[in-house]
C-alpha cells in the first residue's frame, strides 16, 4: 500500500539525520579516546603517530575516496607543511600559531603548483604526483639551499617545543578532518564529487562543475596533510628531510585507507587501528620484514579484497558509517 508522500519524506529526513548522528558519534568517540589516552598511556609519541595516521588516512580518503585521484606523493604536502612550519620558526622567529599558518600556506602553495596534474588520469596522476613529491624533496634537501632549509642536515626547532600543546593541536586537526569527511559523506558536495569520480562527463552534463570539485577536494587534502606535517614538526621538533618526505608515510596512508575501505568514515580509521596497531605491537626492529609483510598485504588486498574491509558488509547491503 502506498504511504502518504509527506510521511516518506519525513522518514527519509529522519534516517538522514540518524546517519549523520552515527557518523558524528564515531568521530567524537575517536577524538575523545585519543584525548583521554594521553593522560592514561605514557607513550605519547605512539599516540601522536596514531593521530597523525588517522588524519592522513582520512586526508587521502578525501582525495582518493571521493575523486578517484590516487596521490602516491601525498607525503609531499606533509613534508611541505613540516618545512613551512620549520622555516617560519627559523627565519621569522614565529610562534607556533603563525608557524602552523605557514605550514598550511606551504601545502596550499604546493597544491596550487600541482593543480595542472589533475589533467592527468589514473596511473599517470599517481606517478606524476610521486615525481612531484620527489622533486620537492630534492629541492628542500639540496645542499646548496643549506642557508634556507639546512639542506640534508635537518632542522631543530627546540625553541617552540611543547609536547602537550602540539598533541592537542594534532587532535584538533583530526577532529576537523573527521568533520570534513562526515560532511562529504552526507552533503551535496561529497555526492557531486562521487558523481565526478564515477563518470565525469555525465556529472558535467548534470551541471556539476567538475574542475572546481576536483581542485577543491585536492586542495582540501593538501591542507590536511600540511597541517599534519606542521603538527609533526612542532611535536618532534628535530627532523631531517628524509623523515619529513619519507615515502613510507604515503605508503602507510594508502595501505591503511585501502585496507579499511575508501569513501567510508570508519574504513580508514579501522585500517590505521588494525594495521598500524599490529605494526607497533610486533615492534619496528626489522623494517625489511614489515616492508615484506606490507607488500604482501597490498597484493593480497588488491587480488582478494579490492574494496577494503568495509566491503565485506557493504556488499551484503549493510550500510557502514
Amino acid at each position: 500500500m502506498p504511504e502518504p508522500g509527506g510521511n516518506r519524506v519525513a522518514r527519509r529526513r529522519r534516517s538522514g539525520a540518524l546517519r549523520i548522528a552515527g557518523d558524528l558519534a564515531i568521530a567524537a568517540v575517536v577524538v575523545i579516546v585519543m584525548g583521554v589516552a594521553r593522560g592514561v598511556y605514557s607513550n605519547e609519541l605512539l599516540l601522536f603517530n596514531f593521530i597523525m595516521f588517522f588524519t592522513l588516512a582520512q586526508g587521502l580518503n578525501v582525495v582518493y575516496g571521493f575523486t578517484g585521484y590516487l596521490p602516491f606523493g601525498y607525503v609531499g604536502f606533509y613534508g611541505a607543511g613540516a618545512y613551512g612550519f620549520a622555516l617560519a620558526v627559523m627565519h621569522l622567529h614565529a610562534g607556533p600559531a603563525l608557524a602552523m599558518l605557514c605550514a598550511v600556506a606551504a601545502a596550499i602553495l604546493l597544491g596550487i603548483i600541482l593543480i595542472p596534474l589533475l589533467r592527468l588520469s589514473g596511473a599517470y596522476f599517481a606517478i606524476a604526483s610521486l615525481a612531484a613529491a620527489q622533486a620537492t624533496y630534492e629541492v628542500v634537501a639540496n645542499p646548496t639551499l643549506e642557508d634556507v632549509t639546512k639542506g640534508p642536515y635537518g632542522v631543530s626547532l627546540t625553541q617552540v617545543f611543547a609536547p602537550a600543546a602540539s598533541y592537542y593541536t594534532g587532535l584538533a586537526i583530526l577532529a576537523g578532518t573527521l568533520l570534513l569527511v562526515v560532511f562529504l559523506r552526507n552533503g551535496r558536495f561529497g555526492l557531486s564529487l562521487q558523481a565526478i569520480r564515477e563518470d565525469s562527463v555525465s556529472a558535467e552534463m548534470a551541471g556539476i562543475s567538475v574542475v572546481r570539485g576536483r581542485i577543491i577536494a585536492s586542495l582540501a587534502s593538501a591542507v590536511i596533510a600540511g597541517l599534519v606535517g606542521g603538527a609533526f614538526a612542532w611535536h618532534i621538533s628535530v627532523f631531517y628531510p628524509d623523515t619529513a618526505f619519507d615515502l613510507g608515510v604515503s605508503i602507510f596512508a594508502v595501505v591503511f585507507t585501502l585496507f579499511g575501505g575508501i569513501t567510508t568514515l570508519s574504513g580508514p580509521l579501522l585500517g590505521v587501528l588494525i594495521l598500524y596497531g599490529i605494526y607497533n605491537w610486533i615492534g619496528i626492529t626489522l623494517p625489511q620484514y614489515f616492508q615484506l609483510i606490507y607488500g604482501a598485504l597490498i597484493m593480497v588486498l588488491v587480488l582478494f579484497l579490492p574494496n577494503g574491509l568495509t566491503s565485506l558488509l557493504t556488499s551484503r547491503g549493510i550500510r557502514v558509517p
Partner: protein
Amino acid sequence: MLVSAIISGVFFGLFFTLVGLGLNLVFGVMRIVNLAHGDFLMLGAYAAVFLFALLGLHPLTSAAIMLAAGMVIGIPIYYLIVPRLARARDVEMLSLILFFGMSQMIEAIASIMFGNNERSLPARLLGVGPVQILSARMPRAWVYSAAVSAVCVVLVYLYLYRTRFGTITRAVMVSRDEALATGIDVDFVSAVAFGLGLALAGIAGVFAPFMLGSVTPNIGGTVIIAAFAVIVVGTLGNPLGTVIGGLIYGISLMLMQTYLSSWANLLPNLLLILVLLIRPEGLLGHRVRRA
C-alpha cells in the same frame, strides 16, 4: 665541454633506453605500468654480481642468461596475477597498486637476503681504461652497455615487425578486445611480452653496477622514475620512441651534471612532470591514452 657532455650523454642515454624498453613493451601490450620494473632490474644486477662472484661469469654471459630467466620468471607471474586482476572494476589503478606492493616485497626480500651494503662489479671486467671519443672520455663499460642496448632495440624491433608472433603482439597492442575476438590467445601474448619486459630489465640490471656505480636493494624506486620519464618522453607503447626518450634523458642529465651538478637529481622528476603536462602523448605519438 658541451660536445663531450652531449657525446657521453648519448652513451649514458642508450643505457636508459635499455632500462625503459622492457617497461614500455609491457605497457604497450598490457596497458599496465609495472612499478616493480626497477626492482626486477635490481635483481638482474644482483644476479650478475653473484654469477661473477661464484662462477666467474662475464657480464655479457650473464646478460644472455637474464633473457631466459626473465621468461621463466615472468610468464608464471603473469598467469598468477593478471587474469585475476582483469576481473576487477578499476584495473588500471589496482594494477598500479598491486605492482607497487610487489615492488615493496622484492625490495624487502632483497635487503633481507643480500643486506643493504653497496655491491659492485670490478670495472676491469669490461676492459681497462677509458674510451676517448672526440673530446669525451668515458668508461669502457658505457660503450658496452650502449652496444647491448642497441642490439636489444634492434631485436625488439625485429620481433615486433618481422615475425608472425610480433604481428600478433602488435594486434594486441592496438586493441585487446578485437584481438581476442579474432581468436588470438591474448593472455599468452601478454605473458610473453611480460616475460620479455622482465628479461630486458634483467639485462639492463647486469650493466647497472657499471653505469650507476653500485647497487643496493632499494635502487628500484629511483630507476622506475627515470625509466618512466624515458618512456613518457618517447611515447608510451612505442618501443622505438624509447630510443629518443633515452637519448634526451641521457643528454640532459649530462648537461645538468656539467653545468648545474647539484640540481641533477631533480631532472628525471621534472622531465616526467613537464612532459606529462605539456605533451602527454610523447614526442612521437598520436594520442594513445586519455590524459
